[in-house]
């Protein structure tokens, strides 16, 4: 199984090929289109993570000892970064998810999207992903 760290490393090297910010953002927008999309029935207030800038919907399932995430966002850049978070954390055992310190967002130069001022729902998305994992780890 590919570990969280290995998945992060893969994304970091994927992003190394961009020296132009516009290419990078075009790539993020593309990533958003292939996100493991949350089922329409879960796109409700209950699964919504509210930011003042954009909204994220997140759902988690527990299958064969692994957490499977799906998500969506109303903003495409947020959606692309959400897709990356899912790429890294989905399919991992809950304990790994709870214990991990994600560093790839910083490394690929998207740290600004996780700052408080952006308030785009992503910081709370990571928190919520960990909370789901924590709940599953006790099952």
């Amino acid at each position, binding site marked *: 199984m590919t570990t969280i760290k290995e998945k992060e490393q893969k994304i970091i090297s994927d992003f190394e090929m961009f020296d132009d910010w516009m290419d990078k953002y*075009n790539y993020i927008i593309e990533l958003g289109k292939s996100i493991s999309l949350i089922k329409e029935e879960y796109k409700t207030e209950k699964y919504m993570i509210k930011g003042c800038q954009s909204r994220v919907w997140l759902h988690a399932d527990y299958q064969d000892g692994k957490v499977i995430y799906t998500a969506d966002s109303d903003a495409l850049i947020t959606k692309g970064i959400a897709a990356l978070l899912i790429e890294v954390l989905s399919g991992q055992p809950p304990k790994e998810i709870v214990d991990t310190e994600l560093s790839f967002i910083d490394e690929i130069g998207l740290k600004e999207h996780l700052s408080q001022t952006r308030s785009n729902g992503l910081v709370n998305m990571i928190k919520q992903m960990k909370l789901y994992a924590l709940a599953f780890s006790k099952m």
Partner: protein
Amino acid sequence: MSKIEQLRKQFPILSMEVNNRPLVYFDNAATTQKPKVVIERLQKYYETENSNIHRGAHFLSQMATDAYEQARKTTASFINAMHPHEVVFTRGTTESINLVAHSFCKKILKPGDEILISAMEHHSNIVPWQIACQEHQASLKVIPINQKGELIIPEYHKLLNEKTRLVAITHVSNALGTINPVREIIEAAHRKEIPVLVDGAQATPHMPVDVQALDCDFYCFSGHKMYGPMGIGVLYGKEKWLEQMPPYQSGGEMIKDVSFEKTTYNDLPFKFEAGTPNVAGVLGLEAAMNFISETGHDAISAHESDLLQYALEGLKNVDGIRFIGTPEHRAGAISFLPGDIHPYDAGTILDKLGIAVRTGHHCVQPVLDYFSIPGTIRISFAVYNTRQEIDTLIKGLATVREMFG
């Protein structure tokens, strides 16, 4: 050098580059940049005048006290208040409104009473009244707005009744740019002897304000939105109201005599200025008001109207543009959506291009609910903005369209 270039030179931050591009600063409704005269005033105070005011008999204290009280006079004359003691220094518009919501409502609000606000208020002119209403079992009533983002005045007249104790209304909407007919609003309220508080945070940077001509009972504004420092603001209140209101916060400065049995409160305005005030902020605000007066209200307003017209014309040609708010009388701000593109996406790309705009709900969620939108892009102007910067924005929006279109 052209006039505008000369003026821009007075604002050091404007020569900055963001993401390797010249900064285009269109977030002035959030806070304006500061001219050198303001920055230098703060520095001069801390270098040569700093001491606590209204206390010591020593040289520095006397000098700082004089400067502080002179700034109060400057402020009074800036808004044409009848008396300097009708000017209370606060941390900003939010604190000014909270002061009235707390202190004035304690005095006048009874169960069953009503406070009237509008559907375009900033959260800071909603929440304090909500809390006051809860505390005093009163209710909050809301003047509706129309699709253009203007108040529906006939509805206002219907809502004014014998239970209304106060009208709290914004002079200029931060999200829509609408200039409200505050004079008419105040007149109608006064016919029923109802006092009116005006939130002037978005008005004072753009237009002269004469509180006596308006005849408003309270007028609130912030220094940092009008080229002054952060953390300083003003509450203007008519003497007759301020006299009747109990203190808001308590401590030093606001007292006359203190014993363990009884405290008598100080005179206006000191009754409302508990603790050591933000002296540097007050002096910086004075420098900002002087900057505005010297630049000239007419010159500022002519330049900014030109920018608004130019931007509205230019934006019209942006694919799929939807203006949120199309008021007849507008100051400062334009809100829009570039087609179906999310404001966060557009704002992120514009930032990469060195263009600072505001995206999101602008602290006016009820307005966005009314228009059924998640947020807007807001551009807001100050005296130092240029037509070229608007061209840069429009080019930037074309890039946004290419990426998300």
